[in-house]
């Protein structure tokens, strides 16, 4: 369980994270989404006490991270995979981290096998590919067998096989009842992995909702219609109040907004028009995300004149 309460981070006049509150529950994978510079990594560093919040606080499993007697056993984190001394082997890196908590050597061997780094475990981490570095980061996070996992862009640099592996790993960790927070800018990946989403833009909370609701909320409400009588149907639809129709010349396709499928179907039947296809357009998670973060930017721009000078600079 992760709870952020009014987290803010200011760097001089610039606000990186503004009054961010959210709860990450155990048992599901929670995606942490936002465009570059939205404040995802800063937020994650504040969760772990690496950065001190300007105001607000965060608790993990009921306590601030630094107040845990054995933090690695409570929270496993991978922030920017390259938190490894390039001159040290993967094995010694994990062994040194394990030593701080008295975690036995066999657990180190175990996580090395778990992430599939056995063959390169004794090699210098500086020579690792991006994908191997990610696996080492995940191994560090799993070292203490923690109830809560915080992973910053774990699929970055992984090959398709690795991505599939991460996806299954995250899901199985959540199924075991752990809290899993995963940041990503890959919406499509989150659609496959996460059940819940926390979306931020410009350091502010945009959405805290299930993946399903998120797509629904942001769906365009458009209906895709394919008919040999496109011209006639288009004319009839345009006569309805609040309905807009976009047609492509020479195609039998109409994009209708402001009308439900049922309405369009009945109208076609009344006038004896043939329909080949009548499909509500679901926004993809990607589109939904773009739509919502775009709004956030506009909202920010209109609201700034009435807020403090500090926020204008942000």
């Amino acid at each position, binding site marked *: 369980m992760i709870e952020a309460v009014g987290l803010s981070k200011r760097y001089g006049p610039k606000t990186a994270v503004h009054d961010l509150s959210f709860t990450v529950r155990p048992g599901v994978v929670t995606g942490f989404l936002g465009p570059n510079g939205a404040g995802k990594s800063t937020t994650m560093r504040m969760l772990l006490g690496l950065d001190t919040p300007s105001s607000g606080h965060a608790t993990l499993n009921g306590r601030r991270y630094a107040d*845990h*007697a054995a933090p690695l056993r409570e929270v496993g984190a991978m922030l*920017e995979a*390259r938190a490894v001394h390039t*001159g*040290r082997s993967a094995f010694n890196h994990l062994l040194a981290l394990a030593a701080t*908590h008295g975690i036995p050597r066999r657990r180190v061997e175990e996580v090395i096998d778990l992430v*599939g780094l056995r063959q390169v475990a004794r090699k210098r981490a500086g020579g690792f590919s991006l994908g191997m570095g990610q696996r080492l980061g995940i191994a560090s996070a799993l070292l203490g067998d923690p109830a809560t996992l915080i992973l910053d862009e774990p699929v970055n640099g992984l090959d398709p096989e690795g991505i599939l*592996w991460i996806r299954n790993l995250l899901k199985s960790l959540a199924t075991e009842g752990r809290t899993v927070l995963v940041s990503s800018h890959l919406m499509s990946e989150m659609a496959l992995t996460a059940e819940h989403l926390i979306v931020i833009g410009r350091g502010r909370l945009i959405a805290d909702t299930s993946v399903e609701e998120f797509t629904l909320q942001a769906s365009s409400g458009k209906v895709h219609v394919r008919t040999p009588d496109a011209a006639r149907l288009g004319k009839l639809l345009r006569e309805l109040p609040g309905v807009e129709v976009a047609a492509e010349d020479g195609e039998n396709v109409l994009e209708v907004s402001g009308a439900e499928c049922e309405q369009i179907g009945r109208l076609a039947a009344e006038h004896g028009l043939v329909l080949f296809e009548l499909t509500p357009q679901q926004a993809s998670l990607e589109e939904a995300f773009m739509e919502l973060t775009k709004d956030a930017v506009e909202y920010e721009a209109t609201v700034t004149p009435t807020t403090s000078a500090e926020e204008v600079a942000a």
Partner: protein
Amino acid sequence: MSTVTATVISTKAGEGRVTLPRVVHSEWIKFRSLRSSYITLAVTFALTVGFGALFCWATVNRWDHLPADERAHFTPVEHSLRGYFLAQMAIGVLGVLVVTGEYSTGMIRASLSAVPKRLPVLWAKTAVFGAITWVVATVSCLIAFFLGQAILAGKHLDTTLSAPGVLRVVLGMGLYLTAVGLLAVGIGTLIRNTAGGIAAVFGTLLVLPLLAEALPSSWQDDIVPYLPSNAGQAVATLHQGPHDLAPWTGLGVLGLYVLAALIGAAAVLKRRDA
């Protein structure tokens, strides 16, 4: 690299919490698992012993042609330890690297995530690096001393550990080099950048005494003996000059500089974002 299936994680991680001895153990693993540690310690040993032997050999070789005044001021114990001047640079670099190596690679975030109270990391680094430096420096000085005296014996110029002050000089040099290493750990933590840290350590040890020579001579006597390197070297000087600090007072003054650097380091480590 082809583990596709997700494996259910077992609970073999044990029960323990973070303790200072465990953090010390962790820092020991970190130190011993880097090649640069061994290289730098070997360089420290080679410089101390090698240059000590070289200077002693040169003296024996040219003794008959030396002016009387130079012969009168010859102190065999100091002569055999003269390699310290270069060895302190190797130790200073390693002391800085112990900390800045973590910042430049990002390792520091892993270290501070494992030990979020942060200060145990600094104390453990100080303890591990201090102990290792002390052992290596003291052993190097003892070997340089015995080898140097063996060479000086060719002209019957040698001295022994039981002669007045000699043991204090040899062991004192090991302590001086250890203090230099700890000063470097403190400065490395304050500056966080390898090049800047090394420049600051060398500036403090080597450049400050040169700069002070530009001061009016009446001020020099009040300032020069209290500079970190001059103060610390008093313990490794057999016969103190008129303005030198007493041996243990001098080492104590250097110790205060080290303490100040480490307290400053602790304050910024605790406060700054990692």
